[in-house]
């Protein structure tokens, strides 16, 4: 690892630890990291939006025109219309003209909702209902081995569980009697589903932390592994400077705590 890369990696490690310091309590290092990432992320998004979206979709399409004619002589001058409609969105900040921004917004909402109706109906509702109405495999009803997901009884549980779950979410009728019994079975099935989701969620969250440990480990390997051919005393010097900075902060906190207690 060359020294330039090491410095950048050290910055990454420092910002990682600064963000982790929030677990102890809110502190200036965490605030620095938080505000820095907000600014850098916004700047990154501006550049990506400019180079990947605005330039190819608008500017390049008007670029064969002349600037002194405001590009109206380009081969595709009608692209000015969506540009003007988009610019109308900016009137949102004006108290008197904010209503103008409703027009392009209405265009977008109309298109998005119109697309959603048939596609969501087909894919979230119809196809899921078709899958629920699959033939129960009576030839293999009890399955093979312990808990077979392809067995007939599993298909019955899927069908009954899905219906019962939908019964539970129907709140226009009170959950009493037979209806209530089916809804109760539905909530049991839903609880098993939420439990499975929780198990996966724990795995997901822990994975995020494990990745940080792996990254810090790679940095530590470069900083402390003397057999690394690019290793240099500067790596340790930078590390100890950071440790002294953190130690100084801890000392200041302890002094404040002791004074407050006194």
């Amino acid at each position: 690892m060359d020294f330039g890369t090491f410095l950048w990696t050290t910055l990454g490690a420092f910002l990682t630890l600064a963000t982790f310091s929030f677990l102890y309590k809110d502190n200036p290092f965490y605030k620095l990291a938080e505000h820095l990432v907000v600014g850098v992320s916004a700047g990154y998004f501006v550049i990506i939006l400019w180079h990947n979206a605005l330039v190819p979709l608008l500017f390049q399409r008007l670029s064969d025109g002349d600037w002194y004619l405001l590009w109206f002589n380009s081969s595709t001058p009608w692209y000015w219309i969506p540009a003007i409609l988009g610019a109308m969105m900016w009137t949102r900040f004006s108290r008197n003209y904010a209503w103008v921004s409703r027009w392009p917004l209405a265009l977008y909402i109309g298109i998005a909702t119109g697309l959603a109706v048939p596609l969501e109906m087909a894919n979230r509702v119809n196809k899921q209902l078709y899958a629920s109405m699959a033939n129960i495999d009576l030839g293999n009803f009890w399955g093979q081995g312990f808990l077979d997901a392809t067995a007939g009884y599993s298909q019955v549980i899927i069908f009954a569980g899905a219906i019962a779950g939908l019964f539970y979410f129907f709140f226009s009728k009170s959950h009493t009697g037979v209806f209530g019994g089916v809804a109760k079975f539905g909530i049991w099935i839903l609880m098993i589903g939420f439990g499975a989701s929780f198990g996966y969620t724990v795995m997901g969250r822990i994975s995020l932390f494990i990745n940080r440990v792996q990254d810090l480990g790679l940095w530590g390997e470069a900083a402390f592994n003397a057999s690394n051919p690019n290793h240099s005393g500067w790596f340790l010097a930078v590390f100890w400077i950071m440790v002294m900075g953190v130690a100084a902060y801890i000392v200041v906190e302890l002094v404040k705590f002791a004074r407050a207690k006194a």
Partner: protein
Amino acid sequence: MRRQIPLMLVFIFGIFMIFQYFVPHESSEWIYEFLLDWIYIIGIFALALGIWSLIRVSVAKIKAHKSGWGYPIITLAGLFLMILFGFTGYRDGSWGFYFMTAEGLSNPMFRHFFDYIMIPIQSTMFALLAFFIASAAYRAFRARNIMASLLLVAALVVMLRFNPYLGPIGPVIADTASWLLNVPNLAAKRAIIIGVGLGMVATSLKIILGIERGYLGKG
């Protein structure tokens, strides 16, 4: 006019898009592609609103000199530095500003800011959730009744599914977890998906027909 025209636009374009899904005719496809092409450009300007808001809020905080006013300076510095690097590129042996071509995307400083500032901080912020979920599991996850116990048992089975230290019970737990995911979990999530799908269709129709007008705001 301020409300009628937007409502009309939503209705016309909404109905057209529903209609277009079922009509494979060439002219229907042509209008559909034309609208999609336009909507990308309109949307870009909408996204830029957020950036302007960030600049306004940060400048206001700096001017007000309230406690912690130094931090918005860091935010603005990060924003403008990133924009500067994104427009600075290397071409034909020299560095320069390029607005209409994408040399800035290959600028090493642009990439380094992404790799060594954005990635560590953003991923660490979410990594904090690992600790909060551990703390929440300790404080709040109680088997108070049958339903909570069902949830707890299902969660424990899924969490232990890849543990290799359970001896002969290990494969049983792994098979149980697999069955749980592919049968009762599937049933539960199917019910949710169907419910969400019906809700989305209903809400979309309400918006198209002008029953739901929240997006218009006040006035």
